[in-house]
Each structure stands twice: as C-alpha cells, then as structure tokens.
C-alpha cells in the first residue's frame, strides 16, 4: 500500500483509492510515496522498489522469450489463448 501521509507513528496509506490509517512505528523512517506491507493495522516493511522491478523484469523477460519461441515455431502452434 502506498504511503500518503506520515504523522509521527501514524500514517495514511492507500490502495486502489481506498485510504486507511496504519501504525508506522515498526517502519521508522518511512516516507510519503513509498510502499509498505501492512498486516493487522501495522506496516511491517517498506517495499524495496528496485527489487520489485528486478523481479518484474525477470517475469517480463520470460514472457518475451516464450512469445519469441512461439513466433519462431510459426503459425502452426497457434495462440495460447
């Protein structure tokens, strides 16, 4: 969830336009604009966006390889969908 406001140990976070208050005491130093993992009203960790991007790039790369392999295999394979 995205952090919208930080007021001491209390913050506002948002997901899909839904806002809620969360306790930030376990993620000291969190900043507005960062993403946090929330459980039972407490933020437990700050999302490492570089790591998230790295993971997503692996997925994108795999999907691209599969698409290329399918294209190379020609039209006989047809579409997955």
């Amino acid at each position, binding site marked *: 969830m995205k952090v919208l406001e930080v007021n001491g140990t209390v913050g506002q976070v948002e*997901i*899909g*336009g*839904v*806002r*809620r*208050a969360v306790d930030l005491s376990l993620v000291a130093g969190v900043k507005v604009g960062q993403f946090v993992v*929330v459980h039972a009203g407490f933020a437990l960790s700050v999302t490492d966006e570089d790591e998230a991007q790295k993971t997503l790039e692996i997925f994108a790369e795999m999907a691209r390889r599969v698409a290329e392999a399918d294209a190379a295999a020609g039209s006989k394979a047809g579409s997955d969908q």
Partner: protein
Amino acid sequence: MNIELKSEKLSPQITLAHGNGGKLTHDLIRSMFVTAFSAEALSAEALSNDALSELADSARLKLPEGEIVFTTDSHVVNPLFFPGGDIGKLAVCGTLNDLAVMGAKPLYLSCALIIEEGFETALLKKIIDSMAEAARQNGVRIVTGDTKVVEKGAADKLFINTAGIGVVLPGAPKGLKSFQAGDAVLVSGSLGDHGIAIYAGREGISLQTDLQSDCACIFPLVEIALKICPELRIMRDPTRGGLATTLNEFVQGGRFGIELDERSLPIRDEVRGVCEILGFDPLYVANEGKLVLVLPQTSAPAVLEALKLHPLGRKAAAIGRLTERAPGRVYLKTDIGGERVLDMLVGDMLPRIC
C-alpha cells in the same frame, strides 16, 4: 422536495403512541406519508394516487391486461444512510428490481415501517422523502402502508418492508428451462459497489473511499434488453451473496455450468482495494443496481452495446457463457489462466486476519 414537515403536529422523536393506531398515528400518516406519497408530491405527469388518499386499510388498484408479478422484500440495512443512498431509496429500488428482472413493468408499492421508539422524526421524514423521490423517478405509486413502533431495543432504528406489483411485458424471460449451451452471460456494470460502500462506511472499519452504493432501479436496462432480444433466458439482480451466488442459483441441479472470465469482470479499483484489505471476494459482495442476463450468444453484442449507452449500463460486460462441461457448477478462468470453482456464499463474510 417542496413538502413542509408539519412540525407542530409531530414531536422530534417517534414514540410508541405513533404506532398505536390512534390520533398520533393518523397525524404521522397524514402529515408525512400521505404528503410525500400523494399525487401532488409525485411527478409532473400527475400520477394520481387516489388509492392512498382514501386512507383505507387496503388499496383498490386498476391493473392492465395480462399477467402480473408480485413480490415483497424487507430492508434492514445498517447504516440507514450510506454513500449513494439510504434505506428508503433501497426499499423502493430493491423491490422494483425484483419485479423488473421478471420482465415486468413495476406499477405499485406498499410501504410498511417498523420504527424503534425514540427514532428521530426528521430522519424519518428524510427517508420517506427519499422513498417518494425514488418512486417518482421510476413512475410507480406507493399506494398502501402500515406503521408500527416498537420499544427501544426491540428493533434497530428502522426496518422497511415494501411489496410490489408489476405487469409482465412482452418478451419476458422464459426462465432456466430455456437455457442452451453457449448462451452468453452479461452483467450491467461494476460488481460489489453496494456491499463495499456499506461495509467501508460502518463504524469501526476506518476505511475511507469515494465509493458510492450502486442503489438504483434497473427497469430501464430491462426495458432495453427486452426490446432488443426477444429470447432472453433469465435476468436477476445479484444482491445478497453477490454475482457468484446468483449464478449458482442459475445452474444448480441443471444440465449446464457457467464459465466466467476473471479478466472480463468489471470491478472498480476501490472495491478491489477494500477486498484486498479485508480479505473479501468481490464476487460475493452485494449489488443493488446491477442486472445479470443470460441470453443467446447471437444477441449478446447488440444487447451489450445498447446497455452501454444507458447511464446505468456504461460498464456492462460479457463475462462468461453456459457450458455443458461441468453441470451445476460456476467456475472462473482466473487472471493467470487457472481455474477455480465459485460456490454459493456460506454464512456471513468475516474479515480475515491476513
């Protein structure tokens, strides 16, 4: 609305005496209900409401030729006022929708109130006005009613029962037995708005959203579908238990199953967000202004296009089809290409710990 509350007659709180059938009951009915529901208060088309103004215990009604449909529904929503509506609007629209999905044009409603002693008169007036407004917008008349007041604690603020009568239009759906393999399943808009708006608004939930209940009368959409498609199989408004429960009702014990495409389901981000937080599934969340239709695949594109042109149907979507593969089952092709079975909702949805 242009009705003045005749406050000299009504105390700020409803008391047991307002429900005992005596003078105070009459004052309440005359100064609030009859004024709100009477002909002058209704639309410029001057729907006459003689049935009500006679103040008899029953209404005498003129009905057009043909079959009628008749339904009743009690409304106990908490909170009474929520984003996008209130219990009054809900009590009118809910019953109109039950009539509409039968392929009927709604004509008349009754209104029975159970009021907890001490309920604020001004709030009651607001709710009654809201009922009158919803009735006016949809061209129906509230023709009879009843008022009971119960002791504090015996009811939660206010319950409303409405019964409704409508007349069946040509082309009304033939029902479950007309199902055929390959029939399309359409929904008229985003799912779960009502249930989530209500839930997020409850005390102690502390979720802020701009989400509004979808509470509306869907007769206009029914009319559109009936006009375009003479072979509608079935229509329903997926209220309590949500879309998944309604679709299960369609296929239970029958020859067909329903296959849904998760990626085609219209669901607002806010609804997804609240569901992520509370661990709810939007397919089981109540709607109050949505129409689900089963119809021949060949008519689906035209009906879909027409629904989308109406303000209530802008987000209409084709979401699945009848299949012979898994009779009696509703299953979902998930975002990632897997599959899962959607059963009926069991018990209340309880927020989960993780």
